[in-house]
């Protein structure tokens, strides 16, 4: 996999969630992503960025425009050094929330992207990598 371009931005305050959405939208548009795929990706980014801010205590978002086997993709990574997710199975259950949300953030975001990878351990933070391909 070749990384064509990349960048990082903070996800610490509410306004950063808006900026995360805007960056993703701009990148996806520049890659020529279809509107429906773009909308799904931006929505997933919104959910995960909010999780990073609220549950992870803030973190960063890395983005990468990548190429593999002649396909271009947009990969977004959310990382925080928060408390981590103690029970992953529970966290990946629709409707379950440790806060006061709807419990659709993680599971919903997973459904909206093609690649979804989650690394977490109690006390060791959380890292979620998502991607959509064009």
């Amino acid at each position, binding site marked *: 996999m070749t990384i064509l371009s990349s960048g990082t931005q903070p996800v610490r305050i*509410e*306004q950063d*969630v*808006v900026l995360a*959405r*805007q960056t993703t*939208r701009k990148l996806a548009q520049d890659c020529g992503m279809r*509107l*429906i795929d*773009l*909308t*799904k990706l*931006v*929505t997933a980014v*919104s*959910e995960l960025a*909010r999780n990073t801010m609220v549950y992870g205590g803030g973190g960063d978002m890395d983005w990468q425009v990548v190429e593999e086997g002649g396909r271009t993709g947009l990969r977004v990574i959310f990382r925080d050094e928060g408390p981590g997710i103690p029970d992953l199975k529970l966290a990946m259950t*629709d409707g379950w929330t440790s806060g006061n*949300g*709807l419990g*659709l*953030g993680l*599971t*919903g975001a997973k*459904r*909206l992207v093609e690649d979804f990878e989650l690394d977490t351990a109690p006390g060791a933070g959380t890292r979620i990598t998502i991607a959509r391909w064009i």
Partner: protein
Amino acid sequence: MERIPILQMGEFLLVTIQVDMHDQLALTLQDDLSERISRTSARGVLIDISALDIVDSFIGRMIGTISGLSRIMDAETVLVGMQPAVAITLVELGLTLPGVSTALNVERGMKLLHQRVAQQ
């Protein structure tokens, strides 16, 4: 403080969301709307989201709360103008907005509100 404007049209309130809302702005709108419904005795609320490129679970929840809250306060809520890509994404996200009335555009939404209020 940044706010989403709420317009009064007779016995209805009209909200057009035209900015990419951060969470606090959405919560402020929720509070402002309930206060306005109470103050104006509005019978209906029309929320136009045609300018919204995405609706995530937070905004979805806000819409559901406004709808439920206005019902308790004797007002109907109709959500209008959802873009097709947003609708598809919402369903895939798992958010089907139960109990929220929708219409394709403002005109149809207004018609629906008039009908609902006339029925009562």
